[in-house]
């Protein structure tokens, strides 16, 4: 038997983890020098970090590039990388909700599915000469957000309003936004459609840079759309206790799955083709996009957690009653974490749809939805580094090495992966109940503001 591919795939895992360490390290570098341009002074650390991220991007891009038939990473590895990036985004979102805020959610896979289908529908329509997808989704998200904010402002003066009453108002607002968006689409789309081309070939707006912009907008709007749905869903359901919330989100996943299976009959989206699966989605996800979106999510997540709001998110996990007594608005903190987590899941879905090019409801079954949960438990609840490393490790080990290794035994053997990894999870829980990595690396580690050292820590009596 030839074991070289197996050894290589194991080496890849080590390299990937080292790569992540380097990435997080370079993002976290602090130079401590400032340069002044005119009146503004900049911390040059930001430039160093940006340069580091760029180098990290190009290293992988180079490895993916085909030099006369040789590339360090093949198409299969590229697929694993994209999957890992999307998994990092979903898992970080779930970790924000479960690991940091303490709300047990099984619904993230549903939001991932919403993001995937929404983004795919936009670009699918766009490349088939129909601009309504983008216009309706975009205007719907924007109008919807404005309406939700207005309702929120109007309700902020009312105290102790029953949650179902405010939910009803938000729901009416959202439906109204949807109605407006459809009408906007009806008006605007005819002006755009002629530029999108037809069966003979793509028009000027459906190729090149324009298509990349549309892809970006599709993913962002899909993420925001998923976030909006999570707001409406979370508002009444988050007031339930944590366990009941978990069951309700499980129900949500199942609802979304069922809607996907019947998307061509129950929902007015024949192009999604229901249970047969949506084909023909333009494969627009490149390493640049996958890496960029992942980096965006990591940075947002880290800055959120390290802020005052992040501390309130943690305090809600620790003790809701005490948090309330410290002036923390527990209900809106939970909602914020849930919406942000779902936003990440929605973005991940959009990236995934354009990498795989084919969406089948089976990929969004709630059983598959346990994967991000397993990843965050592996990596450690409340550990961002753990989540990132576990997501990459999980994809590269389970889909890479283990499949390779078991494939040597027989063609059926790879199914044993699903026996082996629950066992390893069990083992991990016994050996390291706090997760594989219990530390944060580089960028994720530092407090944003350095602490003044105290006497005891200096080990002397001198006062600084």
């Amino acid at each position, binding site marked *: 038997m030839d074991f070289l591919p197996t050894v290589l795939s194991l080496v890849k895992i080590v390299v990937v983890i080292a790569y992540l360490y380097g990435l997080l390290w370079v993002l976290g570098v602090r130079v401590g020098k400032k340069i002044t341009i005119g009146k503004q002074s900049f911390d040059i650390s930001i430039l160093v970090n940006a340069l580091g991220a760029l180098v990290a991007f190009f290293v992988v891009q180079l490895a993916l590039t085909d030099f006369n038939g040789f590339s360090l990473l093949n198409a299969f590895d590229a697929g694993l990388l994209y999957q890992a990036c999307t998994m990092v985004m979903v898992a970080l979102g779930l970790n924000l909700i479960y690991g940091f805020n303490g709300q047990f959610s099984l619904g993230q896979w549903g939001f991932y599915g919403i993001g995937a289908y929404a983004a795919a529908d936009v670009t699918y329509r766009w490349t088939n000469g129909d601009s309504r997808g983008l216009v309706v989704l975009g205007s719907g998200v924007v109008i919807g957000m404005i309406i939700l904010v207005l309702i929120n402002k109007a309700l902020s003066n009312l105290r102790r309003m029953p949650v179902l009453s405010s939910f009803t108002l938000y729901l009416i607002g959202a439906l109204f936004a949807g109605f407006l968006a459809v009408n906007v689409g009806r008006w605007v789309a005819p002006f755009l459609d002629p530029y999108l081309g037809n069966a003979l070939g793509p028009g000027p707006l459906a190729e090149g840079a324009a298509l990349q912009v549309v892809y970006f907008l599709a993913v962002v709007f899909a993420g925001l759309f998923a976030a909006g749905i999570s707001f409406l869903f979370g508002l009444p359901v988050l007031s339930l206790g944590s366990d009941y919330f978990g069951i309700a989100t499980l129900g949500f996943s199942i609802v979304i799955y069922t809607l996907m299976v019947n998307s061509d009959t129950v929902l007015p989206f024949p192009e999604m083709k229901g249970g047969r699966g949506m084909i023909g989605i333009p494969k627009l996800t490149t390493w640049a996009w996958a890496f960029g979106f992942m980096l965006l999510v990591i940075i947002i997540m880290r800055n959120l957690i390290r802020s005052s709001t992040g501390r309130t998110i943690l305090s809600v996990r620790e003790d809701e009653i005490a*948090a309330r007594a410290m002036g923390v608005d527990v209900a809106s903190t939970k909602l914020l974490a849930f919406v942000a987590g779902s936003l990440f899941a929605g973005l991940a879905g959009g990236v995934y749809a354009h990498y795989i090019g084919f969406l089948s409801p089976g990929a969004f079954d709630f059983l598959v939805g346990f994967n991000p949960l397993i990843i965050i438990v592996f990596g450690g609840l409340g550990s961002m580094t753990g989540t990132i490393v576990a997501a990459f490790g999980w994809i590269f080990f389970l889909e890479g090495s283990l499949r390779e290794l078991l494939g040597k035994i027989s063609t059926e053997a790879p199914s044993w992966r699903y026996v082996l990894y629950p066992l390893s999870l069990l083992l991990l829980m016994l050996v390291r109940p706090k997760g594989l990595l219990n530390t944060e690396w580089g960028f994720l580690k530092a407090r944003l503001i350095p602490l003044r050292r105290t006497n005891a820590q200096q080990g002397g009596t001198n006062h600084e």
Partner: protein
Amino acid sequence: MNEAAVEKPVVLQVENLTKFFGGLRAVHDFNLTLRQGDLAGLIGPNGAGKTTAFNLITGIYLPTKGSITFNGINLVGFEPHEITRTGISRTFQNIRLFNDLTVLDNVMVAFHPTSGYSLVDSIFTTSKFQRREKEIVEKAQELLEVMNLSRFQNETARNLPYGEQRRVEIARALACSPQLLLLDEPAAGMNPKEILQLMDMIHFVRERFNLTILLIEHQMRVVMGICEHITVMDFGEVIARGVPREIQENPKVIEAYLGKGAANAA
């Protein structure tokens, strides 16, 4: 300033506060007036309704009847976090720290309502965010220093000894910059030496932060030692009020604590 002649302003005015849990009358017609700078005690046997009264004042329960006026604002119907933001802060009978956070973070959480920057600031780490965050860190560290907790700042709260946990809880309550501090059995589970330190500390924070303090306590030596006014509750009703001396001699109080006949024997 001639303190005796000038009536200090009323901080908290509780009138006819009543709370029913189903058919159970937990608190009935509870009245309480606290003036600026008071150090008052609320005592009574187990189940007398003391903690319920606290929970009503801090908005955890909604009163069945009655009014709670704090600095002229009627607090009935406010959410607990809104009440904290008006300037009432509390500790808990069974310590409720954020156990897995560091001591410093525990205190910093309480600065959230006054953090002064938005979510957008924090996501883009703007200069406003950095400036305000630095101020929060400094204020929290200062508070820890005052409470003699500096050396624990990076320690996880759960790992602290019991007495220190109590102090962290009080530091956290002070971080809300309250005007009125409610302490729910601060001496519970403390040994006599720790109790003495606690009494010193309560006096100290009152002077230092210009506070009005209301405390619930079981340990008679704490209540009698530091409180200027005492309200005694039993079965949800106020049975006595006055200065410590009067309370000690009040037959109703002795009966409530020691049972019928004890008052005659004494």
